[in-house]
């Protein structure tokens, strides 16, 4: 490839604010800072794990990247092209390159359509008009994700949760995308099924040079699948590094706390847990300065005033903290 150095996805200073409307006249009384200036890149065949607790904006970030929700500001580049302000029509060719897998395998499939038609729909939208041709492609996709082509004529409710997620994966693969956003794609599945689906995603990645933006709150899963990890807290990325660095040498106090909360399957190991106090502050009125200062065990006066920039403290290791 000529431009293999160009990242599949480059996001710069992406923001998504939702207006809070109140009263009879629906006046805007405030903003929810769901995503408040995040930047990251994903290379060919790479996986970026986006982690954080519920409500930190990771799902909104994933949706904004696909322009399923319009970003407030910032830029999104897909394969070197800025798609942030493309019109619907101009965006369509880029839709082929990026697809999404949803968390809930039940509501992500139209209950009134055959599984085969669900997977074939992206093909139909993108001009594969011959039904026979579509069905052959869908059958191949079914086989690839571990379903029987005979099941194309079944309805979604006739599948198990794991099988439905495979249908969702097949649909995402149909257009031959380069990037797949996985919005908690295994969180709703049983642990044993999670492993199968993750293995499938990894096999597909090797086979097709896919890039993933893998959104999850499950650190064990993220560690297993990701090359890089971005930790989000209240709409901002607080730490961004390769997976090994994050797990071996976490730099941000929030990352430390997250990691200490991961259960270790060995009762003999006694660890010092850092349990965070308090709740996540509201994204409507985020704390001044560093968003994390209200819960940080190492807080100093400066944290309350000045927002720490995301700095590179070691090659490839970015942290947003005054103390590092």
């Amino acid at each position: 490839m000529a431009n293999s150095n160009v990242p599949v996805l480059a996001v710069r200073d992406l923001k998504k604010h939702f207006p809070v409307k109140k009263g009879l006249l629906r006046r805007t009384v405030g903003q929810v800072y769901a995503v408040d200036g995040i930047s990251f890149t994903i290379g060919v065949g790479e996986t970026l794990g986006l982690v954080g607790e519920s409500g930190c904006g990771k799902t909104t970030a994933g949706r904004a990247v696909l322009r399923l929700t319009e970003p407030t500001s910032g830029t999104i580049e897909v394969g070197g092209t800025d798609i942030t302000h493309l019109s619907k029509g101009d965006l369509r060719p880029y839709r082929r390159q990026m697809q999404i897998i949803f968390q809930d395998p039940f509501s992500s499939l139209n209950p009134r359509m055959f599984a085969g038609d669900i997977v074939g729909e992206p093909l139909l939208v993108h001009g594969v008009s011959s039904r026979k041709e579509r069905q052959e492609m869908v059958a191949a996709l079914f086989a690839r994700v571990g379903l029987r082509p005979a099941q194309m004529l079944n309805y979604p409710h006739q599948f198990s949760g794991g099988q439905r997620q495979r249908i969702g994966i097949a649909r995402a693969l149909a257009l031959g995308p380069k990037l797949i956003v996985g919005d908690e794609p295994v969180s709703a599945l049983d642990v044993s099924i999670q492993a199968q689906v993750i293995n499938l995603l990894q096999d597909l990645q090797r086979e097709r040079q896919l890039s993933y933006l893998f959104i999850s709150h499950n650190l064990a899963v993220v560690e297993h699948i990701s090359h890089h990890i971005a930790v989000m807290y209240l709409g901002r990325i607080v730490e961004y590094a390769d997976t090994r660095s994050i797990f071996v040498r976490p730099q941000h106090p929030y990352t430390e706390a997250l990691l200490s909360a991961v259960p270790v399957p060995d009762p003999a190991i006694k660890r010092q847990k850092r349990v965070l106090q308090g709740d996540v502050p509201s994204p409507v009125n985020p704390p001044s300065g560093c968003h994390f200062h209200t819960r940080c065990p190492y807080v100093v006066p400066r944290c309350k005033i000045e927002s720490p920039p995301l700095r590179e403290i070691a090659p490839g290791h970015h942290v947003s903290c005054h103390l590092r």
Partner: protein
Amino acid sequence: MAIINHDAELTRAGAYVTGGWSTIVFFTRRYPLGAVGALIVLAFILTAVFASVMAPIDPTATNARASLAKPGGVYLLGADFMGRDMYSRIVHGARISLAVGVGAMSLGCILGVSIGLMSGYLGGWVDLATQRVMDIMQSLPLLVMAIVMAASLGPSLRNTIIAIAIPLVPSVARVVRSSTLSLREQPFVEAARAVGMGELRIAIRHVLPNTLAPLIVLATAQLGSAILTEASLSFLGLGIPEPHPSWGRMLSESAAEYVRSAPWLVIFPGLAISLTVFGTNLLGDALRDILDPRERT
């Protein structure tokens, strides 16, 4: 290890239902009441279509000597005060009822579905404006509105259908809108958007089919109420003009004066109306289940 007969199980689950007789047998076993409803509706439709074959006597021919004739003999269900054959009038009346019922229901549903889908899917001020109009329409009783419309449009079959259809619109629009509101947020709609599907196509392909279940029940109930409203309008003299036989007017002409002396003039048209409405309701209930793929297993 137990041997599972997959074929038998799948047959029971409806997996092999593909069409033709086996389908009919399958659904009859599964929904006996629905089959009864289907039979009633079928009989109703056949009666309407083959009215002149089933009742060769002219329903408008009068015979002074047969005035208020008792049921039996030539006049199977008796004759009214003008000596017109009741059997023939009821059979031909099915045509009017079918035309009005199906016509008003279809017109009401087409308008209601379009408005509801648009209102729910687009949201915002479109939704606000449409819903307020629907509020105003719903604040008037259905019959009162139909009466006003029928009176201003003048009595004819077409105007009766319009007069009955318009008041049906708000309830259809409401039902479709409320389902649409929740459906448009579903991930499968989002998935369609992610592949670049147009909004109109999403609304028709992904949202509309999922609003069908409550809509079918409502539509069949409305078929019944349209027939009843036509009867009421004709009862008030605002419906189908004379001399066409209408079940509602047959009731109205006889109810006050002859209910004691010639009860068959009231009983038979009344029975025809009740039976038809009952049949459509039974069929509608079964249809809702049959058309939902989730109910088949």
